[in-house]
């Protein structure tokens, strides 16, 4: 059954991908024709418009256009950016590592800190520490993540200028070693990654807290205590590993969606990832780039879901049994 279960998941992921391609094609075709602007100009001749339409492949029937689009997309040809005249895929390729760095750092920090705070709150359930942490997580859940970023800039880049407020490296700086450059990038990463962490922390904390509360009431915890094991050992060696599963799964599932959620943070900090690319595309009405980043955001979610399924498959024996 194992192989069939995985094959089913893989098939569903592929099917979703096909629908994403169809949707992405018709959505942007729906806004119409990139040559409409030219056709409106009084000095343009019908021949010119026709030539331009042919260069976009718009003179073909719709199905032919779609197979062209799907074929191009599958070979990483996402068209040309209206703004820079560079291939869209080249711009996306350059942006992906920056988004991965930011989202990865944020997810990692939020998971570790969220797990730790969740354990603290669950073991001190109902006490003041617990209530304080719950209120804090409600606040960060309700606050717009880019506003938290603005507050971080206000405090740590302007009032007490210890971190840079934007971009990924100091512009114009000549680094003697790659180590110096890495340190500079790390310095620029601090504030956006902190904003990212605060955006995710509340939810991760709540998941860990509630799963920890559940685990602590289970029989095996009582049994371990009865054998005379010290309480902190029961918590750290037996309860925490069991309570981590829902949090790790959630973090894995969300990893894909977070890239899309980081758009405002990347914009705020001029962090050169997919989010900032998307923002520039919105401002310039650069539809080929927008279509490309939307595709990548969607694929990221599908891929992360699949990865989370595999992870679940690997660590939870109950899935294998079914």
């Amino acid at each position, binding site marked *: 059954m194992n192989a069939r279960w995985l094959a089913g998941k893989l098939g569903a992921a592929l099917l979703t991908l096909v629908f994403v391609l169809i949707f992405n094609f018709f*959505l942007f075709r729906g806004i119409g024709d990139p040559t409409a602007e030219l056709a409106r100009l009084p000095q343009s001749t019908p021949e010119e418009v026709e030539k331009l339409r042919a260069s976009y492949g718009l003179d073909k029937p719709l199905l032919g256009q779609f197979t062209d689009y799907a074929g191009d997309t599958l070979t990483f040809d996402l068209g040309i950016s209206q703004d820079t005249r560079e291939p869209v895929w080249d711009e996306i390729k350059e942006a992906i590592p920056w988004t991965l760095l930011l989202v990865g750092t944020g997810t990692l920090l939020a998971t570790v800190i969220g797990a730790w705070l969740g354990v603290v709150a669950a073991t001190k359930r109902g006490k003041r520490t617990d209530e304080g942490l719950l209120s804090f997580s409600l606040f960060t859940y309700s606050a*717009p993540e*880019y506003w938290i970023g*603005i507050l971080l800039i206000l405090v740590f880049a302007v009032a007490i200028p210890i971190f840079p407020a934007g971009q990924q490296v100091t512009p114009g700086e000549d680094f003697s070693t790659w180590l110096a450059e890495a340190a500079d990038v790390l310095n620029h990463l601090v504030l956006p990654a902190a904003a990212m962490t605060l955006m995710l922390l509340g939810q991760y904390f709540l998941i860990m807290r509630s799963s920890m509360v559940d685990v602590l009431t289970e029989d095996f915890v009582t049994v371990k205590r009865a054998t005379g094991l010290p309480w902190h050992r029961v918590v750290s060696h037996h309860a925490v590993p069991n309570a981590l599963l829902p949090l790790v799964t959630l973090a894995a599932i969300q990893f*894909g969606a977070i890239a899309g959620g980081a758009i405002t943070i990347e914009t705020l900090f001029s962090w050169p990832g997919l989010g900032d690319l998307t923002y520039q595309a919105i401002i310039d009405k650069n539809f080929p780039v*927008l279509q490309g980043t939307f595709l990548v955001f*969607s694929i990221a979610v599908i891929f992360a879901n699949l990865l989370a399924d595999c992870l679940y498959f690997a660590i939870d024996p109950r899935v294998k049994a079914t």
Partner: protein
Amino acid sequence: MTAARAKELLLGSWQGRFGLAVLAFFILMAIFGDAIAPYNPEASSLDVLAPPSSEHLLGTTESGADVLSQLLAGARISIVVGFAAAIISAVIGATVGLLSGYFGGWTDRILDGLDNWFLVIPTLPLMIVLSSLLSPSLGVLILVIGITSWAGTGRIVRSQVLTLRERAFVERARALGAGHGYIIRTHILPNALPLIFANTVLIVAVAILSESALAFLGLGDPTQISWGTMLENAFTSDAPSAEAWWYVVPPGLCITLLVLAVALLGYRFEEYVNPRLQERSG
């Protein structure tokens, strides 16, 4: 729901009281904001990025407009967009969930597939793409947020309807020859309604945050001032570097408080309609 139960639900906890008070405060602000605003929120002056003073209680913007007056005007957009988008999302989610759970078979396969697909597609990028393609206005914002936020409601309603469908009173009605429309109207929908309502209140919070994010990215209604567009203007005019805290702190704080209030009310409703949550909380 009886009046006594509604009162206990809303006033029986600090979450309910806080949520209700804050929401009432912002609704009043949305209604009377224009009347009590000290200045025209869009009137610029030479007094640019001035800190709070007796003339401008919350200082001025990069164009010299009064921050407090803009803040008062912004309440309306957040409330209107939040509630209108949540209602659209509730109608779509409830319809999809009801039809797919009740009829099963191919209807379910298609509608549940659609629901799953909307759950997978990243929401903010989808909203960005849709609002970039349409020209931004208040109606477009509401529509875009509404049609991208319903998948969770659809999922929950579907699973509720799946259990309702097998209940004795539904089978009895069916055996007596009642039509599908009748059964859905009199047995399924009324029983699913509290759940739909609780879920919709939570969507209001999400919709308010979505509006603010879209506005921050320059996709808000350009003719209206919202808290999100205030933050966008502050950001693009580099107000944080000018230490203009009076310009960036109030709009974000208003969004946070309103979202918090609505979310707390939503959780209260959810606890009431979903007894399983009651044991776990606290």
